[in-house]
């Protein structure tokens, strides 16, 4: 390719980079301004004197409806929700994937196909029956109920990840272990699990991102004391108080985004692999 064309190429790629980064820059700079500065300047103007007031307010005292204690409570709710939900759904996915790839039986392919379709069900069809069922078990609007919903809806995805990964482990390895007298659990714990680190990372990161970012289930299946951060953020940003405090909103949005961005920056490789695996390769 000729020199001038390569120049154009790099220019286009850089413009694209600016396009993706701009909202992040705007969020960050807005969150460090005071409201006076926001009214006086514009989207792209740098904050004059950096002020962390908006962050303090978003974390501790901003109103999310009637309550005015910021996002901190919601943040810890999300942490308490995401840890058990990710661990349980990942563990179940690993076991299911192991069975569906290395211990197939009559009907297991059908079970897999049913799980697979579960990946695509619009969750709207589950909301009403789920709300009622959680109510019967006394789990309505509770953290345990929310974790349960995330586990049920996460199984399909985690199973698919592990199953597709384990298909790549040679069957001969399993057979040889079996001839040596190793059983179902021994093969899993001693042979399969130690090889699973990459897919374990992919699944943990994928599930963490999905569940942390979920809004629908949080909105429908939780209330005050158990609402996750996405619901808190939406309440905060869309609370109809007289004046919108955009600096507080942006600080709040960044607080909600921080954990998943941190995971992305630290383990982007696995994140991207999860995306590719999520694109169903049967």
């Amino acid at each position: 390719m000729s020199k001038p064309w390569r120049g154009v190429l790099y220019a286009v790629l850089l413009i694209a980079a600016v396009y993706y980064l701009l909202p992040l820059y705007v969020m960050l700079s807005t969150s460090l301004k005071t409201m006076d500065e926001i009214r006086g300047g514009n989207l792209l103007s740098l904050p004059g004197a950096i002020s962390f007031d908006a962050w303090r307010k978003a974390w501790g005292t901003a109103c999310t409806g009637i309550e005015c204690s910021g996002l901190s409570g919601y943040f810890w709710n999300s942490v308490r929700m995401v840890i058990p939900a990710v661990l349980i759904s990942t563990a179940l996915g690993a076991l299911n994937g192991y069975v569906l790839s290395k211990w197939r039986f009559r009907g297991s392919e059908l079970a897999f196909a049913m799980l697979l379709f579960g990946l695509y069900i619009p969750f709207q069809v589950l909301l009403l029956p789920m709300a009622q069922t959680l109510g019967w078990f006394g789990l309505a609007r509770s953290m345990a109920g929310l974790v349960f919903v995330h586990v049920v809806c996460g199984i399909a995805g985690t199973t698919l990840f592990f199953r597709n990964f384990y298909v790549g482990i040679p069957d001969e390895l399993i057979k040889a272990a079996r001839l040596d007298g190793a059983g179902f659990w021994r093969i899993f714990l001693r042979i399969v699990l130690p090889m699973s680190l990459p897919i374990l990372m992919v699944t943990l990161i994928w599930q963490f991102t999905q569940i942390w970012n979920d809004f629908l289930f949080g909105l429908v299946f939780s209330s005050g004391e158990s609402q996750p951060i996405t619901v808190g953020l939406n309440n905060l940003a869309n609370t109809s108080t007289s004046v919108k405090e955009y600096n507080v909103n942006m600080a709040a949005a960044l607080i909600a985004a921080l954990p998943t961005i941190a995971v992305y920056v630290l383990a982007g490789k696995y994140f991207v692999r999860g995306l590719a695996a999520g694109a169903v390769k049967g």
Partner: protein
Amino acid sequence: MSVTSRPAHYGFAEHWLPRLVLAPSFLLVLVFLYGFIAWNGALSFTASRLLPNYEWVGLAQYEALFASERWWVAVHNLFIFGVLFIGGAMVVGIVLAILLDQKIRLEGALRTIYLYPLALSFIVTGTAWGWMLNPGLGLEKLMHDWGYAGFSFDWLVNPDRSIYTIVIAGIWQSSGFVMALFLAGLRGIDDSIIKAAQIDGASLPRIYWRIILPAMRPVFFSTLMILAHIAIKSFDLVMALTGGGPGFSSDLPATFMYQMAFTRGQMGLGAASAMMMLVTVSAVVVPYLYSELRRSRHV
């Protein structure tokens, strides 16, 4: 490969253990996904309003749904949003993937930048774009400061335009995903084909258009499928960006369903709209999954 010939020591426990291990997940999915679909289907044939009420009313809820202006606004919006969001994300993603595939320095860094929005929740994206597109202090003021005094941008509060703000934010968030899938596909193409075409004197754009892009058909279809699926389920972004407003001008089926079922006490109607969403998703997904499963079986 399945275990057809069982070794002699393949005992009772080994026979039942795999079934036993799979059973809890299978039952959960059977009851809480498939059972609930049936249950929701049943609800859609009842007169349920604020509370479930199993008085059978036949297709009355569907008739009410199809007579509802708000539902058709939501369906119409889904069509606009679906076409523009899928088309936009595809074009941006494919172009970026092709450009990134030209042995670019800093490719890793650029890829990281293009993809990070995917790590954000739609609520964060919606909040951020809501601020940038807001008519008072956002984009409009920026353009005024830059000297374009007549510039006005009121899409967020304009009922005829509000759905397009969702398209803008949606493309920003999801185009990196298309880029990642296509880049992976492009890397899978054999270099020797391209070299052979170059020796034959074909220009680079021609090679992409005639040889490489046609070879990407499978990637194209799976990406299309995923984007269509995201579009049909879109809920969070609307809630954060416009709340479905002004009025219900930017409603999508998912927000319609939520409003009816959970805030307006129209449970039967909400259930019926959820069934319509399921039918739409199934029409896209079932043929795709069927062909995928068939293909993997024949490989």
